[in-house]
């Protein structure tokens, strides 16, 4: 049951190295930053309060110095200019209240909030609200000059907190924002660094992705980070084991086919001799059947070998060279003329291009054409026509083998490329490997195989369309020398 879920795409859980690294870096940094911001705010507040409180106390002391007693009446001698200064300070207006020893109102704002608790210290700071705004208030107790104990005057000065809050915020911002910027920069740098660091892996991915199933050569290990080398080495070891196993399998097929050839040769020779010695009758008919069965076995063995050769790691490396498709196709077709005449077929060759350059392995290409011709000649009824054409489809070289035989039904066109698949009711003695070999060889050349029906509506045309031969600059220059 876990099988199914592991196959299902789980996008949200997809872990990229980049995301993981960013996650590991980002969340701890962000947490640290938050904690440090809280601490920074606390420190900033403390120092701002300290500074502003000191200024507030100065104002209270200033007022306190002006408290006078006249005939047992307390009064404050504040010049008008001083009052104006208190009320129009840059950092916000100050409110004050002076209360006499018997708690009587002396001067200032009568509705200033009283201190929270009775207290004995000379100076006391507290926070409160005044006219709906948060304020900081300092309360100062001053002994009166009357000499009587317990006769104290209380001076209160209040100030809006807004100014100091703003100052604290400014300090905090100057401390915290650069840190935040640093974290974002670190994240960006990490993002790019991971990208750069993983670039060799990306190259490797493209290399693996663009490979054909035939290419089992080792992956390049140079220029990969030390950390991924063990992975590449392990993959290369796997590839090597795989190609060894494949080669062993190919060798086995090839060896088996070779081993079969000698006994079949004996069987064929003896059957032929027996036929000559048995002029007619039932035994003659039996021997003819035996001969045709031997022919079929021979064909099968040859095709198995051909397939083993066409497959990757089939014993020999593919030798790609620049060659002329026209010459090769004409030569291969010529070899099949006697066989076509034997079967009373009209085999021909047609082209409209004198030279068709392709990059291919000449042996494999011939093998492919042999299989196409063998199929066409085998399945076309006597009196029929088989034509090999070479030319271009757009700019891509094309090889076609066209016959007017029974044709391949539309529904079976994909299946005929499978190994040992044979179209029913053709009555011919094929083994069903021909088109499998053709496809194998076409694939190894990056060529495309197409099946179509001729215009007249009967027969089969197999097209093999090759990739355009790569431009060879020195060849072009040699062919068209620059005008002197």
């Amino acid at each position, binding site marked *: 049951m876990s099988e199914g879920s592991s196959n299902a795409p789980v996008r949200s859980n997809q872990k990229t190295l980049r995301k993981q690294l960013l996650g590991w870096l980002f969340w701890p940094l962000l947490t640290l930053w938050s904690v440090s911001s809280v601490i920074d705010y606390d420190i900033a507040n403390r120092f701002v309060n300290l500074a502003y409180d000191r200024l507030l106390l100065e104002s209270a002391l200033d007022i306190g110095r002006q408290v006078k007693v006249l005939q047992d009446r307390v009064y404050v001698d504040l010049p008008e200019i001083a009052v104006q200064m208190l009320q129009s300070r840059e950092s916000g207006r100050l409110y004050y209240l002076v209360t006499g020893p018997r708690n009587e109102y002396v001067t200032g704002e009568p509705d200033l909030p009283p201190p929270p608790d009775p207290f004995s210290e000379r100076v006391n700071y507290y926070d409160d609200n005044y006219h709906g705004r948060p304020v900081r208030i300092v309360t100062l107790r001053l002994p009166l000059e009357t000499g009587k104990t317990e006769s104290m005057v209380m001076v209160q000065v209040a100030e809006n907190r807004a100014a100091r809050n703003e100052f604290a915020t400014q300090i905090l911002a100057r401390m915290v924002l650069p840190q935040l910027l640093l974290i974002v920069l670190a994240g960006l740098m990490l993002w790019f660094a991971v990208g750069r660091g993983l670039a060799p892996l990306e190259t490797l991915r493209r290399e693996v992705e663009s490979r054909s199933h035939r290419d089992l050569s080792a992956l390049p290990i140079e220029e990969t980070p030390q950390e991924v080398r063990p992975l590449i080495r392990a993959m290369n070891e796997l590839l090597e084991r795989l190609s060894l196993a494949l080669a062993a399998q190919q060798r086995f097929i090839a060896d088996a086919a070779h081993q079969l*050839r*000698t006994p079949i*040769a004996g069987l*064929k*020779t003896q059957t032929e001799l027996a036929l000559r010695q048995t002029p007619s009758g039932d035994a003659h008919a039996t021997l003819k059947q035996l001969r045709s069965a031997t022919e079929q076995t021979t064909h099968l063995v040859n095709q198995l070998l051909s397939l083993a050769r066409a497959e990757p790691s089939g014993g020999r490396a593919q030798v790609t060279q620049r060659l002329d498709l026209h010459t090769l196709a004409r030569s291969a077709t*010529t070899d099949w003329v006697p066989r076509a005449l034997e079967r009373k077929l009209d085999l021909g*060759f047609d082209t409209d291009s004198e030279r068709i350059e392709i990059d291919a392995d000449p042996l494999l290409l011939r093998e492919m054409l042999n299989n196409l011709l063998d199929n066409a000649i085998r399945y076309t009824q006597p009196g029929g026509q088989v034509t090999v054409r070479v030319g271009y489809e757009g700019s891509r070289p094309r090889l076609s083998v066209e016959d007017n035989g029974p044709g391949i039904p539309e529904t079976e066109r994909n299946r005929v490329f499978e190994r040992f698949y044979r179209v029913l009711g053709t009555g011919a003695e094929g083994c069903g490997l021909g088109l499998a070999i053709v496809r194998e060889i076409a694939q190894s050349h990056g060529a495309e195989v197409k099946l179509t029906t001729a215009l007249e509506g009967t027969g089969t045309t197999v097209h093999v369309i090759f990739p355009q031969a790569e431009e060879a600059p020195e060849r072009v220059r040699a062919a068209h020398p620059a005008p002197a």
Partner: protein
Amino acid sequence: MRILIVEDDPVLADGLTRSLKHADYAVDCSTSGIDADHVLAAQSYDLVILDLGLPGIDGFEVLRRLRRRASAVPVLVLTARDALIDRVKGLDLGADDYMIKPFDLPELEARVRALIRRGQSGGASVLTHGSLVLDTAGRRATLSGEPLDLSARELGVLEVLMMRSGRVVNKEQLAEQLYGWDEEVGPNAIEVYVHRLRRKLEPAGVSIRTIRGLGYLLEKETHV
């Protein structure tokens, strides 16, 4: 005519021996490389049919030792392997012909005849095709004994076709054979000569077939 068959598979060796004995050859058979080497050193043969995959020393080695003794006996190599390298190696070592198993018995018999003939005469100067006979040395052709009236170029075309009887000859090969190096000739001229040859040969049932896009072919005698 004495033939040595070197083949370790008893069924195939027996079949070959009997087939060649029917054709009135004297046939000896050897089943191992060492045995074959000894026999070849002691006896002289007109042809050796040599299998490459032999126990003990293989066919290549037998061939190498044979040629080292400066024997010119024609050798027809049989092999179960068809790798190109094997074929080239065999021919390099001095094999005269090469057949891949399993082969057609009539074809093997034809090649045996050709090899023995070549060993005898060192190349025939008279080509025959049914009732058609061409004397390449005397530059004359006869059809059922009657002399044929052919121009030198028609004779040249016929010679190439007869030398490659049953196989396709393309126009380039014909032109090359006919005209040497200084004279330029188009494919149309070839068509004209082939056309004239056909007119003269067809009454006797010898036909030159046109193979579309490939060339011409002198059809095998059908009455065999």
